[in-house]
Each structure stands twice: as C-alpha cells, then as structure tokens.
C-alpha cells in the first residue's frame, strides 16, 4: 500500500512539469472521504474546479513518513499554492517552506510563521458557544456533556466554548467533561466513546457534544441508542442519526480551500482566522434536525451570533491562556 502510494506520488511529480502552477491539495491521514475535515477540503477544491474549469493535484497521506516527501515533490514540480489539511503538517512545513520561497503554502488548523505561508485557523470557541447555547436550551435535566478525543489544547478550546454557551443559556447548567485518552489512539476508539457517553448519561447528561473524530461515531451512536441528543463536529453530522443529533458545529474548511485556490499564486501569507463573522464556523441547520430546533433556539443562536460578531459577547479562547473560566479544566 505504502509502496503504491509512493509510486503514485512519484508519477505525479513526473507529470507535473507539463502544466505550471496548478494548485495542489494534500489530505491528512484521515483520508479524502472521512465525512469530516478532509472531505470538506475536497468539496472546496471540487467547487473551485467546477467554477473555474481549472485543474488541481491531490495526494492522500498514507503514513507519517510521507509528509515531507509529498510536500517537497509538489513544491519542486511547481504546484502553487499547496494546501494541506491538519495541524500535523506544522513541523514539516516549517522546514519545507523556507526551502521554496517562491511557492505559497496554506496550512489549515495550525499556525506556521513564514512569509510564504498562510495559516488558516478557525474560531472553534465561537461555534462551540452556539452549540452549547442550544444544548443548554434543549437540556431538560440541566446537565450537558462534552467528550473530547485526545486531550490537547485545540480540543479544550471546543469544550471551553461549549461550556460558556451552556452556562449562558442556563446559569445553573452543569457541564460534564470527559476525555477519551492522551494518545492519538483516542481519535479512533468508538467503543470507549460509547461507554464515556453512557457514563455521562448515568450522571444525568441529556445532550452530549463531541470533539473526538472517529471516536465520536461511537458517542453519537450511544446517544442515539439511549435516546438522548448529541451534537456533531467539524462537518455536518446531523444525518448520521436523523432527529437525534441536535446540530453540528461545522468548520468551513471548504471555504478556506476554495478561497486559497481562487487567489492562486498572488495569495498573501499571514494568519487568517475564520470565525462567525466570516461564516468560518456555523451550527448546522437542515431537515434532519428541523424538528429539534425550537424557534426560541433559532432566535437565541441568531442573537448570540450578532452579539459575538459585534463584540458584545466575548467568548473566551482556551488557547490564549490555557484556562477556562467555566468548565473547570
């Protein structure tokens, strides 16, 4: 498999010289069709291709070791700009970007300081705040839960925003926080995710938000099995259990990719933060959760969105000082 992928990458590099300056997209280990983060990037690239008739190159990572090689080959072959999904690329990109000063790079979900790199980060705390607001309003027990995957600051940012939203909706709300683990295996343990959800249900939670990647599939499943509400993350997961997923906190990775492709070589470096104002984060509303979202919730979400954009509500970002004022972690 790995060999095949390497050969594929090599073939790509050989054919690359024929057309100059097509953009390129690198998918992280989750794979192109992960129904989440990477697939959103793919959707954005496809949209650009359909609109402009342009072509782009793509590589799916198959192992950790391929990152640097793939990046260098694309840069050598003249792809520009090169977009990569996922914070795992940050170390590699820091080295590679300096070697190809004429190539523009885009990294999503992480910040790399270099003149030819654009770092796209999302204000997950704002989207999570809205999710928490809805959870706090939907909860009948006054207890809502958050289950993170691997315990890292980025995911704590989700949990912290969510807790602030829940408390804003119901000042007496109790927010339970659990972590699947402290190693990358925590992203792929749906069984443990399901048990964590059941443990939170045992403590009275009746709405559970996850920020746990593949583990989240088990969390949503357990919530549906036990008849409580859940909240999806990253992409719209409402359709996984129609009528049982309250909403999903969607990150518009597709917009970020499409935008970078559109700007092409002229793209500027620096850090871009996509929040509610840029529609970089939204809570998903569709036919699958229409019956769950009351008019009051909708009004509250719209109201909070306006206030956050206007700066009247300041949602605390966990990553700025590594503390959270409400959730107690």
């Amino acid at each position, binding site marked *: 498999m790995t060999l095949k992928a390497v050969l594929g990458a090599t073939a790509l590099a050989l054919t690359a010289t024929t057309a100059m300056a097509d953009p390129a997209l690198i998918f992280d280990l989750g*794979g192109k069709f*992960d*129904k989440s983060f990477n697939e959103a990037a793919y959707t954005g690239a496809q949209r650009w291709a359909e609109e402009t008739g342009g072509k782009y190159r793509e590589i799916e990572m198959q192992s950790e070791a391929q990152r640097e090689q793939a990046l260098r080959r694309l840069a050598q072959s003249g792809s520009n700009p090169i977009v990569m999904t996922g914070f795992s690329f940050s170390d590699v990109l820091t080295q590679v970007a300096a070697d190809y000063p004429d190539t523009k790079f885009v990294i999503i979900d992480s910040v790399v300081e270099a003149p030819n790199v654009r770092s796209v980060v999302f204000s997950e705390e704002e989207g999570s705040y809205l999710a928490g607001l809805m959870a706090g309003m939907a909860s009948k027990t006054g207890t809502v839960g958050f289950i993170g995957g691997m315990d890292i600051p980025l995911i704590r940012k989700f949990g912290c925003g969510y807790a602030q939203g829940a408390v804003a909706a119901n000042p007496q709300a109790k927010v*339970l926080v659990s972590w699947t683990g402290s190693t990358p295996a925590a992203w*792929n343990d*749906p*069984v443990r995710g*399901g*048990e964590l959800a059941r443990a939170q249900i045992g403590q009275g939670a009746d709405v559970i938000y996850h920020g746990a990647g593949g583990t989240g599939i088990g969390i949503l499943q357990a919530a549906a099995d036990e008849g409580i509400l859940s909240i999806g993350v990253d992409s719209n997961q409402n359709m996984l259990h129609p009528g049982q997923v309250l909403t999903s906190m969607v990150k518009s990775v597709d917009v970020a990719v499409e935008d970078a492709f559109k700007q092409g070589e002229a793209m500027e470096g620096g850090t871009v933060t996509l929040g509610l104002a840029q529609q970089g984060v939204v809570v998903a509303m569709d036919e699958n959760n229409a019956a769950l979202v009351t008019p009051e919730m909708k009004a509250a979400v719209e109201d909070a969105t306006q206030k956050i954009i206007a700066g009247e509500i300041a949602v605390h970002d966990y990553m700025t000082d590594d503390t959270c004022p409400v959730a107690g972690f």
Partner: protein
Amino acid sequence: MDYATLLQILDSTVRLAVPLLLACLAGLWSERAGVFDIGLEGKMLVAAFASGAVAFLTGSAWAGLLAGIGAALVWALLHGLASITFRGNQLISGVALNFLASGITVLVAQTAFQQGGRTPSLSGEARFNELTLPLAETARGVPVIGPLYADVISGHPILTYLAVLAVPLTWWVLYRTRFGLRLRAVGENPAAVDTAGVSVARMRFSAVLITGVLCGIAGAYLATALQAGFGREMTAGRGYIALAALIFAKWRPWGALWATLLFGFFQAIALRPDVVPIPVPALEALPYVLTVLVLAGFVGKAIPPRAGGEPYVKER
C-alpha cells in the same frame, strides 16, 4: 457513591470486559497448545470489519457474526501456516498479521463503502440487540439483588452470555477431555505427544482455529453489538490488554474471567472521574502494572506453557 452508580459502573464493566474475555480465552487456547499469539488484535480487527460489512449488506447480525468468525479463521490459518507448518517465529508472524489487518480493513472498507474507512452504520436486525432475561422486571423489586439482576446481569446482547459460557466450556474441554489433555501436553512437551502417536501439528492447528473462532466473536461483538459498524483501528489495543490479562490469569480459564472482569472494572471506573478521584492515566496503566507484578513473582507464580513459542521439529 450510591448503589445505582455502582450498578452503572458494573454494567459498563461487563460491556468492556466481554471483548477482553473472548480475546483472553482465544489467547489461552493458542498458548496452551504452545503457539504464542500476539495477533489477537489483528484477528479481532478483521472480524470487526467483516461482521460490520456483512451485517450491513445482508441486514443480519448472525450473517455478520459468521463472516467475522470466517475472517478471523483466515487470519488464524495464516498464523498457523507461518508458525506451525513453516516453523516461523510466532511473534513476528503475529505482528505482521496485525499490520496486515490494520491496513487491509481500512483499504477494503474505503473501496467498498467510501465512508472514510468505516462501514455504514447498522440498525435493527443487523445489530445484536440487548436481551432482557426472564423475570428481570419482576425481580427488580427484590432489594439489592433485584436491581443487580435487572441492570447488570440482564440486558446484554446474546454474545455476552455466549462469552461467559465459553469459560466453563473451555475449562471442561481443556481439563476433562482427551482432546484437552493432548492439547495441553502439546504446549508442555510436544515430543511426548508425538511419541504417543498424536500429530503435534494437527493439535496445534485445532487450537489456533479455536482462537480464530473466539476472536471472531470478539470482533463481531465490537462492531455489531457494542457499536453499529466498523471504524478504523476500533479494537484500540484490546488484543494486547487481553494478553496481559492472560498472564494475570496464569493461563487458566476461570482466572481469565476474573482477570478480564477486573481489567474491565478498571476501564469502567476510569470513565467516572466524579466517583473515583484517581487520575485516569493511572487507572489505564493499572492492568499493565498488575501484570508486571504477577510476572515478577509478587502475586503467585505465572508459569507459561513450557513449549510456548517454539516451533516443533520432529526428530529424525
């Protein structure tokens, strides 16, 4: 901690212990016959994938179970072929099969279903649903024991009860039948068995195949009972914890039951930081710490089967 919370934790213990128990018994059969099997993880993983995929395609959890057992048997046969027929290193064969399982499941799942290496989620008859044991609701009124019966012992999928039944069955076959005696002898002194005119390779192959069946049930339990579909790497190291439990159980069937229940209990209380104020990483490390203590001889003696890990070479 009140009684209701304790029951919730015990219920969770049972759910988490079942895959460990099945994998632990699987390892017990193989290792008792002198074939070390580090590939329990991989066998569970292919079984989880095959059962999830087939249950989705046919809409029947039982068809999924059979497919899971079938897939695990293929892995068991490969392990047997490498380590019994060709006398290869048993550990290397096991590790290789784990890698193969980890890659091929995601590859096939992605090609077949296009859902990021997952199988589509199952519902209704495609899953093993929870059974309510007779009298569970009537017994609930009985103090202490009633809720224990209704909440912890009743209300699990049929595979859970199958796993518990596998314990006395394993004990009976290993210790009360001629087949079991020969199987254990193959793990202790294969030359003696060979002298008695019994084929060592055939005994070892049957043990390895039984391992495959049990791992198949464990994988199907993960994908079609606990969860509703296969997800990449969903076994999450349970095959290795089962090996630790096997050492802790000193390669005995009843010991395997208690060891896996204990390890399941540790995992279950790790989910409830509100009840037990012990840091979660410490609880997660506990099974391994206990295993090391047992191996070091602090808690009784753990003596592995004497011929374990050695391919049998017939004298000429």
